[in-house]
């Protein structure tokens, strides 16, 4: 099949899935349809990225579609996280339906929005047109806003409103930046619609109007940074993550934040090529990455709700990724590695937190005790993911954070190094305390936990296993993929 069909399927299949969900009556049918759609989508995506992953092709392109090492990598992570979340959602919502927390109509609405969110995120990743990238980001904001308030409570509506307003303003800001970026291409010998293609802009980067391009980057950084959860524009994050149902939180942290950061990376590539690698944009990324880490540290130490805690961890890790890219050199490689590690780990963490919350009926950490005894599978999932998140060796996050430390020492960024170590150290102690308290002890109200299904075991064991494996040994194809992606970001390719 010609490659263009794969692209169209990638974007079109979720839309078809949404329509199907709208027509189905029974919630079980909706959830099964979602899993089927996610599986097919993953298969198509795998076929698409295969060539780029193996290094056989530099990129796959057709018209406005484009897939190079950077976007192929992100697409693979998206599909993995999405598939896992969909499988998890089936179990999660089945339990909620059984206990009467959700009505069937709400499951249908969830299905439609869930498919729409995938279509939007896929659009961002596979488009060469910066306008289409922006449309995808806008669409994710609108779809996910109503995913947050699936449970119609006062707190979730508040979270939804904050999210909708802040991210709409952010996306509007990003649109302004897109306009300015296009304005910076005046005078270039590019025809009308070509001017908005990222590849063309990248090729002509040195001839673009530099002051306009820099102003454009400022707007884009603020705009997409709001969606990525970089401080100080992260205020919507804890509320949205804590109020949304667990599969939605997993998708948010596991992928949506990275989509926004991916857009920033695309523009970093252009700016770095245009300024000849002077690092102007990298300094910005470094600075705000550090601020995110510091702010997240402050809030993590005083958290009481487990999902809010995980949300602040997301802010911290996005900050680490931003810091990594900002340090340049091996930092970019480490940051991209960290993207995968964080996505997988955070997804598992939210899965665990969600299920544990369902079992205990609360998300308050001081009321959750003895998870290892009450429900071994998810208890291990929760504890294991916490350990991985705070950077315990030999999980993969430890490796990527270590590489960032090397990058900081290489670049002689000692202040950054000090802040990074202080922040992660404080978080290590604070979060470990919470994790141990939740894992051990006696469960207060021993509820008869549902037996662990095979899917639960696969989700937990598989994720932890991958994190361990990648931490210990990085396959060669993976390393070369990351190197190519890092070169793209630094403007060297």
């Amino acid at each position, binding site marked *: 099949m010609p490659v263009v069909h794969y692209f169209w399927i990638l974007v079109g299949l979720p839309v078809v899935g949404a329509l199907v969900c709208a027509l189905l009556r029974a919630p079980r049918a909706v959830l099964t349809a979602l899993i089927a759609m996610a599986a097919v989508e993953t298969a198509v995506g795998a076929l698409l990225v295969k060539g780029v992953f193996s290094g056989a092709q530099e990129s796959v392109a057709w018209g406005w579609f484009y897939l190079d090492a950077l976007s192929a990598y992100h697409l693979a992570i998206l599909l993995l996280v999405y598939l896992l979340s969909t499988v998890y959602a089936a179990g999660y919502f089945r339990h909620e339906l059984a206990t009467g927390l959700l009505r069937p109509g709400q499951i249908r609405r969830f299905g439609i929005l869930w498919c729409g969110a995938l279509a939007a995120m896929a659009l961002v990743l596979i488009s060469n047109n910066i306008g289409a990238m922006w449309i995808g980001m806008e669409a994710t904001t*609108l779809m996910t806003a109503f995913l947050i308030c699936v449970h119609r409570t006062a707190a979730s509506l508040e979270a939804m409103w904050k999210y909708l307003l802040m991210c709409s*303003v952010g996306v509007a800001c990003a649109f302004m930046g897109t*306009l*300015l970026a296009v304005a910076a291409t005046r005078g270039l010998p590019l025809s009308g*619609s070509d001017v908005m293609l990222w590849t063309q802009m990248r090729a002509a980067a040195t001839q673009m109007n530099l002051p306009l391009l820099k102003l454009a980057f400022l707007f884009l950084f603020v705009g997409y940074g709001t969606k990525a959860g970089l401080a100080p524009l992260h205020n919507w994050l804890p509320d949205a993550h804590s109020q949304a149902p667990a599969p939605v939180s997993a998708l948010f942290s596991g992928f949506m934040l990275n989509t926004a950061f991916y857009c920033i990376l695309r523009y970093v590539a252009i700016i770095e090529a245009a300024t000849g690698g002077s690092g102007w944009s990298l300094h910005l990324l470094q600075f705000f990455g550090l601020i995110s880490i510091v702010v997240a540290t402050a809030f993590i130490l005083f958290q009481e709700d487990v999902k809010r805690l995980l949300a602040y961890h997301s802010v911290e890790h996005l900050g680490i990724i931003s810091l990594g890219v900002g340090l340049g050199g091996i930092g970019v490689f480490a940051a991209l590695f960290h993207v995968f590690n964080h996505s997988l780990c955070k997804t598992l963490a939210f899965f665990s937190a969600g299920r544990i919350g369902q079992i205990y009926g609360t998300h308050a950490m001081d009321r959750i005790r003895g998870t290892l005894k009450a429900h071994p599978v998810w208890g291990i999932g929760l504890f294991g993911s916490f350990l991985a998140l705070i950077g315990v060796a030999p999980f993969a996050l430890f490796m990527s954070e270590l590489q960032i430390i090397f990058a900081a020492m290489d670049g002689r960024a000692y202040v950054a190094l000090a802040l990074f170590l202080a922040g992660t150290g404080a978080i290590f102690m604070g979060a470990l305390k919470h994790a141990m308290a939740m894992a051990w002890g006696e469960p207060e109200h021993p509820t008869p936990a549902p037996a662990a299904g095979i899917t639960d075991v696969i989700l937990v064991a598989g994720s932890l296993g991958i994190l361990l494996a990648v931490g210990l040994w990085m396959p060669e194809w993976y390393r070369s993929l990351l190197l190519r992606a890092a070169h793209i970001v630094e403007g060297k390719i």
Partner: protein
Amino acid sequence: MGLDTLFVFLVLTSLILLGSSLLSSSIRVVALQGAVLSFLPFLVMEPGWAGRAVFLAALTMALKGIVFPTLLNRSLREANVRREMAPLVGYSLSLALGIALLILAFWLAGRLHGIGVGLSTLSLAAAFFMMFTGLFLIIARRKALTQVLGFLVLENGIYSFGLTVVGHIHWLVELGVLLDVFVAVFIMGIAIDHISREFDHINVDQLDQLKG
């Protein structure tokens, strides 16, 4: 001169919004701003694009002048509020800050126009001022409805900037802004409905349960 008058009018409507407390008249002012803005394509488009200008103007007028005010007025009726009482930043101070923002907008416009962007300093300044006013309304007001109006004004500013700076790129400005505003306001309208039904008010500063 006609172009100048149009931009001055846009700035004036933004100033009025900064000092206005009655929600229904604020909606009217934003609708008026949108209606005036819909004439902009005719004044900036090159002669060969009459068709595109007509399409844009008609679409903008229909959306910003008719559809949005209707939706917002419906939300206003269902939320049962009339005035923005005691905003976070008082009205006199809002106007004073508005003057400061106007100076900032003109300065920024002067710098950009100096490197050859945009039709004139006034056109850029009007666009920036609308963006600043929109952001200000979102930050400094309590009612969710006023925040949506602020978002609309922000979008008006971005639209006018896009049209005068990169209007020659087909479909960029149209698609971006109209998609953004249409869907966002539609969804925000729904969101406000949910909020007012659940909470019995639309004071966003009372949505403060989630802290820390």
